[in-house]
């Protein structure tokens, strides 16, 4: 075999290796989900969703945790969406190239890399203790809002960047002020991209466990929260609690709850991808 053939062979071998690596992640993903389905699907019925948690595995349901997750989702959206988009708009449209903007930029990039459990420590001390909100839904939502703020800001900036300058120029030429241009032209034009980012950020918030454990969210709450000041649990914490128990019935419960959690995550990701595709086509 001469060296040309050898090199071609190596080339082909690497190609096969590359395909194997690419597929291994996906195959494992399918095995994960398949295994969880086998363990949990038989446990899912209407009662599983509407029953309160119980000491007996076969009687336990996810009602309180599911309601907690929905509360967290709604409140986190209300808090993080306006602040994140406003900050993104400021950085992209208003801020000049100076020290402040450089500081804001490096700071946001750093915040995006702070481990989620650290946000939990911040929430525990600042919201739960100093502001005296306790281990409430509000504390959880505030904590998760800060956690996903950098993701929303970055997504907003990317979306605004993609709007062609011609739209901006046309609006200014018609005598619109800066804010009128942003409100009537830029935000509607970048809406799809912003929405994609916000939904992805929220899907992350729904799956977060560690920061909520740190602020003191409970594994067992007898009732679903009815105000933002109530104590709560969320699906991931319920799952974590069930995994930590030795009896087999709880493992089944955990798998069943994971199916529900994954369903929520995948639906949110699907919606985000749908918006992204529709929005990308608009500018092509």
């Amino acid at each position, binding site marked *: 075999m001469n060296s040309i053939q050898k090199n071609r062979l190596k080339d082909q071998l690497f190609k096969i290796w590359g395909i194997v690596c690419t597929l291994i992640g996906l195959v494992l993903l399918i095995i994960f989900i398949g295994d969880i389905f086998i363990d949990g699907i038989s446990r899912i019925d209407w009662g599983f969703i509407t029953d309160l948690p119980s000491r007996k595995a076969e009687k336990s349901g996810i009602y309180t945790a599911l309601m907690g997750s929905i509360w967290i989702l709604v409140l986190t959206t209300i808090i993080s969406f306006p602040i994140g988009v406003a900050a993104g708009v*400021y950085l992209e449209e208003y801020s000049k190239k100076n020290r402040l903007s450089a500081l804001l930029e*490096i700071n946001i990039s750093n915040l995006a890399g702070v481990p989620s459990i650290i*946000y939990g420590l911040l929430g525990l001390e600042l919201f739960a203790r100093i502001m005296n909100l306790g281990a409430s839904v509000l504390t959880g939502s505030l904590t998760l809002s800060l956690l996903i703020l950098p993701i929303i800001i970055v997504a907003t900036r990317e979306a605004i960047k993609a709007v062609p300058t011609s739209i901006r120029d046309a609006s200014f030429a018609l005598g619109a002020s800066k804010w009128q241009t942003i409100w009537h032209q830029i935000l509607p034009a970048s809406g799809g991209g912003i929405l994609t980012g916000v939904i992805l950020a929220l899907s*992350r918030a729904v799956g977060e466990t*560690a920061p909520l*454990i740190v602020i003191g969210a409970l594994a067992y709450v007898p009732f679903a929260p009815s105000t933002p000041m109530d104590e709560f649990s969320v699906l991931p914490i319920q799952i974590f609690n069930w995994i930590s128990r030795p009896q087999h019935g709880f493992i089944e419960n955990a798998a069943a709850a994971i199916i529900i959690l994954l369903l929520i995550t995948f639906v949110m990701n699907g919606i985000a991808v749908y918006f992204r595709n529709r929005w990308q086509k608009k500018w092509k």
Partner: protein
Amino acid sequence: MRKIRELVIEKSLLGSALITIAVTVGIISVLAIEAVRFFKEVSLFDFFTDTQWTPLFTDKHYGILPLLSGTFLTSLIAISVALPIGLSISIYLSEYAPKSFRKTIKPLLELLAAIPTVVYGFFALIVVTPFLQQFIPNLSGFNSLSAGIVMGIMIIPFVSSISEDALHAVPRALREASYGMGATKLQTAFKVVVPAASSGIIVSIILAISRAIGETMIVAVAAGQQPRLTLDPTVPVETITAYIVQVSLGDVEHGSIEYRTIFAAGITLFVFTFLLNTLSYRIRKKYQEKYE
């Protein structure tokens, strides 16, 4: 009137942006205040040299080393899984794969990162550990091996996605020149494209390490809760993050030394990830300038 309105709007938008600074200041002060109180009772020297971490026992020791070694060990295993696979994927997708394949596979891979980490924890404990026990009979029910491997799978998309973007950004002309010299795709990839994209690849690796160090639920579920100074992947260990979870699950009184330990552990974790994130940011900025 309109001018005032415009100004008010601008200032309130600025206010929103400044919240991010307040968050950083908040994190640092909260961690620092409680950590300073902690270090009034425990000397820094003991903290970094004592080889035992037993704040919840009657015989109390406050040596962070066992938690650091647990964090280091699980992260090391995760990176050894994620790095070769992630880099191979990025090179394959950028240099070999047809465009349509690349377009469908990338979002699917990113789905790996979208799965809640507690789900990975379940998988590590219920599936991977029993599977590995068939080959390693003395593997403990909680161990850093399964937790590390599963964490590695989770961070594959971090490595592959950012590296692939960096490889993709390398100008076409460099590749054409290499092909023109008779090089194969493999030679071009490793001798031309990868070196040209090296800073982007390094950024992806640093971010993956930072992510692995801060990962909580996988290790809290599958690696155990026994701080021990070891590099043996088959025994239970405890990471910094898992310790914080363990304390948070119990009833720890505010103001007690146990309460402060989670902030001392937290600030250690924060310092490490902060250094890694700043480093990656610097490299990224430098690299952007190079291509613009």
